[in-house]
């Protein structure tokens, strides 16, 4: 019986491709969530500065 290496390649190739794609999706989504978490963290620091009238960036004296 012929070896049908094409079919072997197809099977292994498909498996590798699908698993890699899933892995990449995980990685990508993790990065998105990390960005989201960072934005959330920054936003939660802002209320502590509430009550101080925020000066315009241009008029703010340079930080020593």
């Amino acid at each position, binding site marked *: *019986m*012929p*070896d*049908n*290496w094409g*079919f*072997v390649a*197809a*099977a*292994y190739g*498909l*498996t590798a491709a*699908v*698993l890699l794609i*899933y*892995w990449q999706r*995980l990685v990508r*989504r*993790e990065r998105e*969530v*990390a960005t*989201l*978490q960072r934005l*959330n963290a920054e936003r939660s620091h802002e209320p502590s500065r509430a009550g101080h009238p925020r000066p315009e960036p241009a008029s703010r004296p340079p930080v020593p």
Partner: protein
Amino acid sequence: MVRIFGWFAAISLLAGLVMAFGVAPREVTQGNVQRIMYVHVPLILASYVAFVLLAIASLVYLVRRDPRADRVAHASGEVGVIFVGLGIATGSIWGKPTWGTWWTWDARLTSVAILFVMYLGYLLLRGTIEDPERAARYSAVLGIVAALDIPLVHFSVYWWRTLHQPPSLMKPGGFTGSTSILWPLLVNLLAFVLLYAYFVARRVRLLRAEAEATA
């Protein structure tokens, strides 16, 4: 911990690949196309592990309402569906040159196809419900119904047909193939189970992060 699973999975996958092509012999009747078995069978068996864990996690969630159990069920479902889908595809690719057909409605193939569709429905249900708490509850109920259905599916389909080769790994008399086939198979089985564990661990971590970020 996720990274440890990842490295173990990667190493054993590599070992499995080497064994599938280096150690395993060229099969007498089928030729080298039989090497597809070293991905096909582990994928299917690993998916069974996934679905068993899904059932257990669903039960735990219903009893304790622990969101961690829900996340494990969710992740297990995802990876399980991917693995069983790939298992069916590789089996089909294996079947074409050896049986002459991409598909046949024998007992084993039919059961696995039903399994695939059932758990695909599980993922669909999760995807359709917006409220995370309700999604967790309903998915858990579906997970349990599906798990209890599996033996019913198995028997009904088996009584309806038989064509697939008798299971050589789980026969009462023990494995009758040679060790040069058995070891590559076992190594690949371990590899895919580790890969499953890695994917689930990583997905669970991501689910928790998503939940916290959108809380």
